[in-house]
């Protein structure tokens, strides 16, 4: 029972993650908001999954490598029914499975992440297994832009085209800000599209908040040829909340009561 409307889902996801961040003093709200639209399109219109059988063999795999921005993934998995809100509200409490970096023990999560640069390699293994078993599931991986500083990603970026892994899609959440500075200041990625093209990937650039662009870029039936696909999603850190947008501070801060009310009010206005 896929939610039919990605925008409705996105609104719920954003409100859920903001509330979670407020109640539990969580960080990385900016990076969670930047990827919330992509996640909402994936879980409403793209991914094949069964919330009552999270390990269903035929499911599409989503590897969420930017595990620090956990609230967005936990929120979308809750909103589509992998677990209840009561379960999610144990977030970071003693004994909770909902750790502040994504945890594989949570239903619907494929891999524990947060130590950056690991998931794309695991995705290559999953895609390779899928090819050799001749399955039709697809492997999606979401990495942050700053995470592309990690060399292990580039090992995987070399590997996937060599093995013609056209059953995998890499999504770069290109919000232009990493831990303590802009991408330009810390370690410039540009020209990112050219880099992926020269490594042999089918490269698409989109507005990572435009749902129809996201959908068109991520659908499986448009894959032709043998190349793996990368979608560079140009996003805005803190998207949808004016005082958070493009602000480095919201890599770390969590909203207080007034900020939460203002943020929820702004999200409610967005259609």
């Amino acid at each position, binding site marked *: 029972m896929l939610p039919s409307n990605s925008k409705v889902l996105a609104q719920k996801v954003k409100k859920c993650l903001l509330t979670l961040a407020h109640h539990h003093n969580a960080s990385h709200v900016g990076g969670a908001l930047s990827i919330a639209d992509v996640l909402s399109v994936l879980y409403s219109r793209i991914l094949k999954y069964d919330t009552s059988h999270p390990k269903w063999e035929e499911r599409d795999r989503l590897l969420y490598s930017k595990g620090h921005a956990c609230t967005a993934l936990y929120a979308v998995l809750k909103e589509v029914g992998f677990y209840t809100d009561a379960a999610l509200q144990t977030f970071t409490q003693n004994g909770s499975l909902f750790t502040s970096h994504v945890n*594989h023990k949570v239903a619907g999560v*494929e*891999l*524990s*992440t947060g*130590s950056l*640069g*690991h*998931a*794309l*390699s*695991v*995705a*290559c*293994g*999953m*895609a*390779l*297994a*899928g090819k*050799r*078993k001749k399955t039709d599931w697809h492997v999606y991986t979401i990495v942050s832009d700053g995470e592309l500083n990690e*060399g*292990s990603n580039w*090992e*995987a970026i*070399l*590997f996937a085209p*060599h*093995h013609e892994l056209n059953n995998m899609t890499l999504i770069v959440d290109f919000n232009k800000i990493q831990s303590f500075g802009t991408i330009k200041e810390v370690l410039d990625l540009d020209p990112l599209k050219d880099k992926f093209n020269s490594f042999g990937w089918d490269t698409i650039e989109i507005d990572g908040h435009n749902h129809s662009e996201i959908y068109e870029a991520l659908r499986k039936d448009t894959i032709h040829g043998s190349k793996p696909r990368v979608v560079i999603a140009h996003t805005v850190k803190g998207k949808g909340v004016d005082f958070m947008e493009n602000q480095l501070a919201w890599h770390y801060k969590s909203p207080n009561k007034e900020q939460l009310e203002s943020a929820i009010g702004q999200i409610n206005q967005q259609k």
Partner: protein
Amino acid sequence: MKLQEITVTGKKATRDGFGDGLAAVGQTNSKVVALCADLVGSLKMDAFIKAFPQRFVQVGIAEANMMGIAAGLATAGKIPYTGTFANFSTGRVYDQIRQSIAYSHKNVKICASHAGLTLGEDGATHQILEDIGLMKMLPGMTVINPCDYAQTKAATIAIAEHYGPVYLRFGRPSWPIFTTNLPFEIGKALPLTTGSDVTILATGHLVWNALEAAKRLGLEGISCEVINIHTIKPLDTATILDSVSKTRCVVTAEEHQRNGGLGDSVAQLLSRKMPTPMEYVAVNDSFGESGDPMELLDKYGLGVKDVVIAVQNVLKRKKSPVLV
């Protein structure tokens, strides 16, 4: 078993045992797949690749990626065997193993060649002596260091049936084969000789040195119980405690740092269950260097004479436990 009953059936490298074991388990278990970081010849993986080209993945010189790919293959029900040198199998990729393999207890077999000083001429950069410690610290990781060709082959086959992450450590040099007709069971120590004066717990190549030392000590009337601890984790505590309760002193022998090795695991056991005089034959907080493998073992205190001296020392302490 008596020392005289140990039969040498030839000489081959433990890495040959891995290669032959991999080809054999490939025949019997269709889930087994192999990955290599461009060291196919060194790891002796050719026979498997020839027989099962579709079940082999050449990842290039990219060990971090190899560990992640293995984790991904395991999620689809495959049993991946990764192959590269021991230093690139552990220290270089520790975070990949910890995050993507160990934490979720994935069924990946990390197969590591060219461990220890017996790598010889390649020198300290490649002679890893810390790998057992690194791997045994990971929760749920099984750590196996076979002693000869036959045992490495048996272990390579056995780990396919053992669910969970495994570190299998072996080496480069040609080495006497003496376990051809002996059983191998993961987690079950292999007593090689019965003795009454001292227990020698040895792993990897040093098992042979322990047997040679036991022969020399036998001429002096010292009766050694040599036990092969091929599985360092989980440790066969029952077999060790049984022997030590009889001999009341222990020597451990391994081609590894004293810190973090087999000796550490044994000391941890004995200090809690049966405090006992104990001596270590191990590298003492040092890197290796380039040289002839056998001469390096002597230089770094891992030779046959070093096991003999350790036994003599521990026997003195058994008689007079206060150290001078």
